[in-house]
């Protein structure tokens, strides 16, 4: 049933697409590359679903617990005894869930792009990159080894870089792809050092062994890792926090989020796949993968996760309320929702009822993938129609884009947490987990959910209602079947995914977790969400001057939020003024003037000495006789008077 051959085909098929289209696409598959890529992806998605079915229903639980299976593993690079990078496949509830999410969303994006990018000159390259990304992401979620996850982590980073820079002749896209790579690279160094620390104390790089060694209080590895400390924090916590820094970079958590809004320079389907549904949740996945170590051995590190997540969720929601580029609004919204997933893990405990946060986080990851991908693809349809990203160019589009309108509305309702759409269920679980473990975070999350409803419906009303804009140029209508089918399928997911009894399948300890809903608890968040929606409706349903007035009355706060709290400027200051001018320039100067100067000095001095003394060898016998005489007299003086 769970045969390694076909499971390994799930990532290898997209890789085959990358190699095939990358090498020969421009020559031989100019027009068919989209079909080839999509076909391979379809097979891969079917295999993933089959695997999920096999894992959850056929293989099922042993002793009431979902097992961690390793159907494939081989050594890639061995460092020493027990310490090796292995390439393997791990099947456990979260990796199988991610397999389904990644292949499904990727398939939707593959299909959607057939319509969205039709006629592009670099069509084969685009599909090659999509294949590379999907391969890397699948490799990431199935990793059996912490170094394997790091390898695929870098590979998704580079695919993201290539896809953001897809429109390579656009300077803003080039700047954005560079920024995304460098910011996440910076975070990845933290990840790498974290891996070094964890591997040193656990003596292994294999996830299963590592988690086992660092969570059993009797093991010697655990004892040394907890007792060794630096600046009052245990080595284990340092390792976990540094690993989390890597996760925070990839998942655009504050203050490493600055690359995500700029990453919207990429084609919109790419934003849906990479920067909304899959790659950006890699950080959440990483924490979930190491969750037992966080929860059992280092509550301190886990609370760092919680607070970083909550702050990111909150700040991003505020910024999202002020942005006017629809993709940027969605980017900040993504950051905010990932913040939810992060702090849900942060407030969770390990095992049983305590593990509600873990289940909720994974559940939200699942539902968010559906509705956020839908929002991006819907935004893509709007941009495709109106040829602009700016809200002010839109309005009244519900008449021209009926399918986009309805599906977008469903996604907005889902993200705003309106029952019975998917987001409601996952968000309620998160709030419940926060309520029981950390009141401060609960209140922040509650306000954030009201803000979420507001900015999403601000977007919705500004695009589809408000003042009607005449469509520009010829009227080519809503995208074709290729673009509409993914919207409809995702809308079904966004509407219905909430009814999956997620706790039955995914929980911190692999056992079944029953999640019950309390009507009394749900009243506050739903009421706040509805309030946000009505406020947005009042402000944006028809064209008024209310938004400007309110913005003016908020004064400095609005301005600060509009400028994203000046975090980009702060980074620019640090990189340009401090690193370039205070380190780079002096290093280059020192090399040119001091080190090279000394070499030249040595060379020139030698030349000068040679110049000076070369006159002695004149070839004139009289001169030599003179030197001889002077020498003899000198020696005579020396012997007679000095050394008597």
């Amino acid at each position, binding site marked *: 049933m769970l045969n390694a051959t076909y499971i390994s085909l799930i990532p290898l098929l997209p890789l085959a697409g990358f190699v095939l289209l990358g090498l020969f696409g*421009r020559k031989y598959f100019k027009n068919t590359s989209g079909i080839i890529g999509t076909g391979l992806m379809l097979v891969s998605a079917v295999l993933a679903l089959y695997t999920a079915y096999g894992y959850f229903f056929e293989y099922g639980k042993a002793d009431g617990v979902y097992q961690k299976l390793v159907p494939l593993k081989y*050594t*890639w*690079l*061995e*460092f*020493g005894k027990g*310490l090796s*990078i292995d390439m393997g496949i791990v099947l456990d509830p979260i990796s199988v869930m991610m397999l389904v999410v990644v292949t499904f969303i990727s398939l939707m994006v593959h299909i959607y792009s057939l319509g969205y990018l039709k006629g592009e000159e670099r069509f084969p390259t685009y599909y090659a990159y999509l294949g590379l990304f999907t391969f890397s992401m699948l490799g990431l979620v199935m990793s059996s080894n912490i*170094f394997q996850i*790091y*390898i*695929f982590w*870098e*590979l998704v980073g*580079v695919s993201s870089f290539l896809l953001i*820079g897809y429109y*390579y*002749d656009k*300077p803003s896209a*080039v700047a954005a*792809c*560079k920024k995304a*790579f*460098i910011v996440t*690279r*910076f975070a*990845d*160094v933290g990840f*790498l*050092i974290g891996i*070094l620390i964890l*591997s*040193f104390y656990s003596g292994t790089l294999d996830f299963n062994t590592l988690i086992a060694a660092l969570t059993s209080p009797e093991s010697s590895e655990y004892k040394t890792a907890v007792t060794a400390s630096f600046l009052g924090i245990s080595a284990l916590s340092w390792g976990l926090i540094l690993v989390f820094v890597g996760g925070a970079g990839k998942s655009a958590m504050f203050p490493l989020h600055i690359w995500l809004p700029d990453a919207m320079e990429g084609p919109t389907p790419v934003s849906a796949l990479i920067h909304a549904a899959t790659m950006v949740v890699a950080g959440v996945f990483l924490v979930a993968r190491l969750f037992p170590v966080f929860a059992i051995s280092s509550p301190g590190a886990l609370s760092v996760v919680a607070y970083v997540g909550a702050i990111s969720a909150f700040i991003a929601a505020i910024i999202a309320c002020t942005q006017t580029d629809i993709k940027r609004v969605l980017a900040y919204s993504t950051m905010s929702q990932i913040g939810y997933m992060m702090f849900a893990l942060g407030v969770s405990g390990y095992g049983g009822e305590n593990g509600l946060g873990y289940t909720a986080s994974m559940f939200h990851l699942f539902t968010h993938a559906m509705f956020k991908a839908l929002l991006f693809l819907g935004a893509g349809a709007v941009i495709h129609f109106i040829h602009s990203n700016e809200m002010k160019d839109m309005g009244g589009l519900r008449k021209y884009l009926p399918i986009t309108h309805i599906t977008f509305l469903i996604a907005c309702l889902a993200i705003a947490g309106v029952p019975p759409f998917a987001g409601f269920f996952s968000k309620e679980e998160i709030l419940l987990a926060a309520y029981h473990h950390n009141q401060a975070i609960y209140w922040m999350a509650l306000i954030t959910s009201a803000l979420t409803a507001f900015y999403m419906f601000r977007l919705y009303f500004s695009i589809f209602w408000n003042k009607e804009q005449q469509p520009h140029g010829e009227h080519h209508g809503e995208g074709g079947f290729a673009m509409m089918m993914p919207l409809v399928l995702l809308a079904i997911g966004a509407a219905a995914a909430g009814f999956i009894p997620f706790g039955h399948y995914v929980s911190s300890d692999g056992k079944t977790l029953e999640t019950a809903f309390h009507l009394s608890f749900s009243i506050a968040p739903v009421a706040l969400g509805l309030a946000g929606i009505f406020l947005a409706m009042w402000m944006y349903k028809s064209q008024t001057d209310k938004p400007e007035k309110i913005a003016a009355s908020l004064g400095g706060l609005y301005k600060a939020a509009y400028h994203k709290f000046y975090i980009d400027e702060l980074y620019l200051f640090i990189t340009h003024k401090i690193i*370039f001018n205070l*380190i*780079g*320039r002096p*290093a*280059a100067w*020192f*090399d040119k003037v001091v*080190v*090279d100067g*000394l*070499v030249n000095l040595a*060379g020139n001095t030698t030349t000068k000495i040679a110049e000076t003394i070369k006159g002695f060898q004149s070839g004139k016998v009289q001169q030599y006789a003179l030197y001889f005489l002077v020498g003899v007299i000198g020696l005579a003086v020396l012997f007679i008077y000095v050394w008597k």
Partner: protein
Amino acid sequence: MNLLLLIAIPLVTAVLVLLVRNAVQVRWVSLLGATAQLVLAFVLFFAFRQQRIDGNAADMLFQLQYNWFPSWHISFHLGVDGISVAMILLTAFVVIAGVLVSWNVEKMTKEFYFLLILLSLGAYGFFVSLDLFVLFFFLEIAVIPKYLLIGVWGSGRKEYSANKLALMLMGGSVLVLVGILAMYYNAPGRSADIQTLARSVISPEVQKICFPLLFVGFGVFTALFPFHTWVPDGHSSAPTAGSMFLAGISMKLGGYGCLRVATYLLHDAAKDYSTPIIVLSVIAILYGAFATMMQKDLKYINAYSSISHCGFVLLGIGMMTKTSMTGTVMQMVSHGLMTALFFAVIGMIYERTHTRQVSEMGGLLKTMPFISTMLFIVGLCSLGLPGLSGFAAEMTVFMGSWENPDTFSRVATILSCLSLVVTAVYILRAVTKTAMGPLKPEFAALTDARWNEKLAAIILVAGILAVGTAPFWLNDLVNPATQLIKDALNLQPPID
């Protein structure tokens, strides 16, 4: 497998190059010779592997020994271990690529190719020598052609660069020679044979004097800070193939010497000097990276980044664990392939755009998709992307360094990890500015790579991918040899 073939084939090629009549024949003879080298290197690799699989655990395989100066105990002694085989493979890859990219050299073609082949002869001889005098002999053969290659076929301030390079490398050679002589006279039984020296006990006092001489002497070749200044000028003035040979082969002579001669034979002193080596290599890694960030010329960027990357070679030696030294060898292979490709690509771009200034580039992906893709691959390799060779090598060095639990080594490792970010900054700046962005109108009519350039790039990329996607073969090849050095380091110093 007769190791003399490794010396004979370049020798025959060089002679034939001198004998044939015109430039076309010179090119084809050289290419044939380079192909033969590559085939031979593969034969050697598989023969070596087979010997190891068959259980031959000798330190050095395929040994040959002929008397040279019997009264002086100097013999023409050849043999290879995993490190040598890795270096020979690298050399063969770089040589064939270098021959291919030089296809359009019109100025004194015969002499040019003769020098290239001579240089490769020196490199092979160096890597298979088991007698220090023979080793030194081949080291000198590998130095002299470089002076002429830069001085005659170079560009820019070529006389200055050629002088600087020759003087600094000669200076390094002199230190090496003095070190070898000191060892020779102080070793029991007057020998310069590597295996004899490894088995004999050299007194700690002698080691203390010899080690810095040899390490610094060889270190000059591999851009040991602060003896690295020949690297930027030398590489940027050299013709394309010259830069490729310089970075891909010559710098590796130094790393190999530091490992095989200095560290292996003078293991007691090596341990005492590990701290300064680590300090200097971390300085080279970071300082080289920051200095690269400020460079504006593509060749200077690659040359300065070589200083940073070769810092990892020395760091791996300084950390003195088996894994870190394996990392050193992997980094040498990786860096050799990568910089050779980088210089080849820069040469292709320069030939077309007539500029190497990053600020004057833009949008080349549109007119030169192949060359730009190669630029991306080599850039990503340089910044350590998994799947390409740089990653596996650097990670092995990091993992090996991390085995030393003392705070000093920890801090050094973490500091060198930080270079990963700086590398990403300068590489992405150079690569994106060159290949992406709006196409400059004056570049609109440029053409993509020709067959010889494509072939050269593909050969090097194949090497990069072979190390990057399946590093285990290199690891398995090198590990027994570095284990031997580690065993030597583990010996207790003699008492008294």
